[in-house]
């Protein structure tokens, strides 16, 4: 009965949402803010990848909030899961194929991750994407050797400093007479690596933070999994 009602409601919801969607100007988006950004991003920010310009420039505050959410999630996770009991049993190491594969992949993944982070203002990609790859790079050995202790303090140091760098960059702008999170150091030449002012620095901090955060999250969850 309950399920039937739920399905009926869900069907109704889908139908109504479609009805609403039919009223939307699909394919003719009213690009008000977006249009302005497209036109002026090159001059104002200097990042070839306009999405990056939006993420770090125009909507920098969102991005700050976003990494903070990750941080908060990590802190909350730590609070919820608590410390691992000393001497809790761990899973045994994986087989040699996985171990060797992990060792081979690790430098490659780190490299790719940093590349994607550092070129975020030029090409598709950026701090988040790269950060996730970095996290994967650090998680891979953990899959292969669950017994290896995770360096949580180190991760939190990276987390904290990277986040602080992001904010301090913003604060420097504020203290030098601009607004919070205003890009500094000029725009540079469009399309080159050292362009778009502080954006690459921010993206680096972001990537490191995301990477550390995700790695920490995964490691903690993995810890919790075995600690029964």
């Amino acid at each position: 009965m309950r399920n039937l009602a739920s399905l009926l409601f869900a069907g109704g919801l889908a139908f109504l949402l479609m009805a609403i969607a039919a009223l939307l100007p699909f394919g003719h988006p009213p690009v008000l803010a977006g249009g302005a950004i497209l036109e002026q991003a090159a001059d104002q920010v200097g990042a070839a990848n306009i999405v990056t310009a939006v993420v770090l420039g125009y909507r920098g505050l969102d991005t700050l909030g976003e990494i903070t959410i990750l941080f908060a999630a990590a802190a909350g996770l730590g609070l919820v899961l608590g410390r691992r009991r000393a001497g809790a049993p761990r899973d045994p190491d994986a087989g040699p194929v996985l171990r060797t594969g992990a060792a081979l992949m690790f430098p490659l993944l780190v490299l790719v991750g940093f590349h994607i982070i550092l070129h975020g203002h030029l090409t598709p990609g950026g701090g988040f994407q790269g950060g996730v790859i970095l996290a994967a790079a650090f998680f891979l050995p953990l899959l292969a050797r669950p017994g290896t202790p995770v360096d949580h303090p180190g991760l939190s140091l990276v987390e904290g400093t990277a986040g602080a760098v992001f904010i301090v960059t913003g604060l420097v702008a504020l203290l030098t007479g601009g607004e919070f999170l205003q890009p500094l150091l000029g725009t540079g030449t469009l399309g080159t690596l050292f362009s778009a002012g502080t954006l690459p620095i921010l993206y680096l901090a972001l990537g490191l933070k995301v990477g550390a955060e995700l790695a920490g999250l995964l490691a903690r969850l993995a810890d919790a999994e075995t600690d029964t």
Partner: protein
Amino acid sequence: MSQIALTIALPFLAAFLLPVIGRVYEALARVLGPLVLLYCLWLVLQLWGTGDGHPVALAMGGFRPPMGITLYVDRLALLFTLLVSLMTLLLWPWQRAADSRECALTLLLAGSASGLALSGDLFNIYVFYELVSVASFGLVAVHRSGAAFVATLRYLVISGFGTVLALTGIALVYSQTGTLNLAQLAQLAPDLLAGPVGLAGFLFMLLGFGVKGELFPVNTWVPEVYATAPARASALLAGLVSKLSLLVVLRLLVLLYQQEQALQLLLLLGVLGVISGELAAWRARDLKRMLAFSSIGQLGAMFIAFSIPGNAGLLAGLALALHHLLVKPALFLLAAGWPGAVERLRGLARGGPLAAGLFVLLALSLIGVPPLPGFWAKMLLVVGLAGQESGYLLALAVVLGAAVLEASYLFRVVAQLYHRDEEAARPRPYLLDLGSAALAGAVLLSAVPFISPLGDWLAGTAAQAGDREGYIITVFPAAGRPLYSAAGGGKPALAAAGPLPEPKP
């Protein structure tokens, strides 16, 4: 004025650095949070002093409004920023200050709450709102009991549902208008958001952003969370965070949806909230859940207030909100030292006369007994409702009936507290909570002689908050002229929203 962004940035910075510093200087880590909050408090007070009372718009990152994110600082936003710093400072988890993660979460809550109060961008509001959520998830689960985890999970699922709805709503609004800036949306709203799409967006956003505001029906998490969370976290959530959710709804209503249907929706949900909350509270057998349910009811009354068209409703809602913000946390703090079940409160007044006396005072104000401030807030609501049509009169009857129920169950507690016939229970010693509650009580009492100036000031604030034109002009200072979007290079934005270049396949 642009330093107001520090109230967001500094708590974040401190939170980020807290684990790092904690490893080096533990003593510093313990006081870092309060220090930062104290600084924010001082900063806001200073800005309050220097400001001329006119609203100011700040372009974050130095980008002009429709492109970048705007912070809108009017008296209301400033007031809430002040309250955020103040309340987090008062409700700082001193007992558990050793745990840097909890301190960090509290700081994050403070920063994001300030952001929520200041933000003038729809998606930015969403981000800060989610940040508040995530920080509160951690904070309410710190007791690490099974019940706390399950309660938090239920909270999280509802909240997640709300997130999805809010995001859908934002997507609808953005599809329709192409902008996220509240001021620009306010300009476009009468043309673009008055139809079903806009209203559907409002419905989704209301349900999404109403989760923290304990809006019916997205409030089913409330009783269990408040029953399992530490008192200070409950106090923060019920007192502060719920009001920020209200603030978001207020901004949406004033700027985007000043239309009958949206108001009716809010009225209906508010009435349902009052009915369900107060009735459930009447049945509740433990104090914390009773307070939680009554909180639902009272927030329902605030939603009802906001649904009254015009500034009278805003004023009433704000007054109710500020009063609740003062009283409810204090009640939660008082309850912290007492045994949970109402029957077990018997004779507590002898062991803790101050706490019992405070409870009576706060309860009286909550019920709305003159000349305590709660009465004036309720009076404003009654006056606002009495001037309206039939649906509002029904709401008036509901609100007043709820007050009767409120008196009945709150004084059932008082009766237990002052029970004389048996040997008295004794409260746990909890000086810190008691002190904070006493402070709230003192503020409440000292507000009595200044009700008149306070009311005038609040009326001014409400008028400013309800001034849609003022908001638009502040953000786009081309006074009174139609907004020029940068995209069109001098082309009016309203026109830009019209026919667009033919798409090329």
